[in-house]
């Protein structure tokens, strides 16, 4: 045991993939809701 971690790229990819997927999903959800709200506002 040297106390040095080797490899571990799978953890790095997992952290970035989960983070950006969640942020993208939230952003898309917001964008759709804003577009829908603007459309409803225009129709009134």
């Amino acid at each position, binding site marked *: 045991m040297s106390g040095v971690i080797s490899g571990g790229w799978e*953890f*790095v990819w997992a*952290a970035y993939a989960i983070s950006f997927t969640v942020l993208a999903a939230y*952003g898309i959800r*917001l964008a759709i809701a804003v577009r829908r709200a603007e459309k409803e506002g225009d129709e009134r």
Partner: protein
Amino acid sequence: MDTHLPAYSPKAVKRAWLALAGALGLLAIGTTNGLFVAPPEHYMGDVYRILYIHVPTAWNAMLALTFAFFSALAFLWKNDWAWDARLEAFVETGVLLSLLLCVQGSIWAKPTWGVWWDWDPRLTTTAVMLVAFVGILALRHFVDDPRRRAVWSAVATIVAYASVPIVYFSVQWWNSLHQLQSSPKTVDAVMVTPLRINAFGMLLLLLAFSSLRSQLARRRLARELAPPPAAASLALGGEG
């Protein structure tokens, strides 16, 4: 209580889209640098690269909850509905980032500590903070009366905010598996640049999301606070 209705602002939405574009650009540059340009760390090797997403997420989660705290104070002080909309937006984005923070931390913990989770002071206080603010979102979801919802959630946000400095200082106050705060003084200069770029990218993302979310909250408040059609027509009749 102020009776003027919060107005939807197309200008704020445009600014949010610009901030979102800036955030995507900065995060693309910062992440590419963090993953492929910055050198591996001496002990953690490549696993430390999670730092470039984890630390900016942590800083901005705490910033979002701090903005929520000041929005709560401003709402109680000024009775302006726009602050209630901002509070909702900042609590929601703060919860989203805190949730990601826990997931990223857990993924980093496995290869470095050997476990996905440990009830150490930093992780425990972060979990308590997350649960407290999820509770505020639940409160806002289940209370229909806008006035009660606004006052109750503002008070709850001020109380729950006590957990934020406790999370921040937990690694200094108690023995923790978690390392002390990272800063340009504790991170090598070569490794700092991607950290800063991602921190600003995440800040722009937080501002963009909060602004869009706040506009949605304003729309809902305007609908809820508008007088019923019969009362509105009576008022119009009275004026004429």
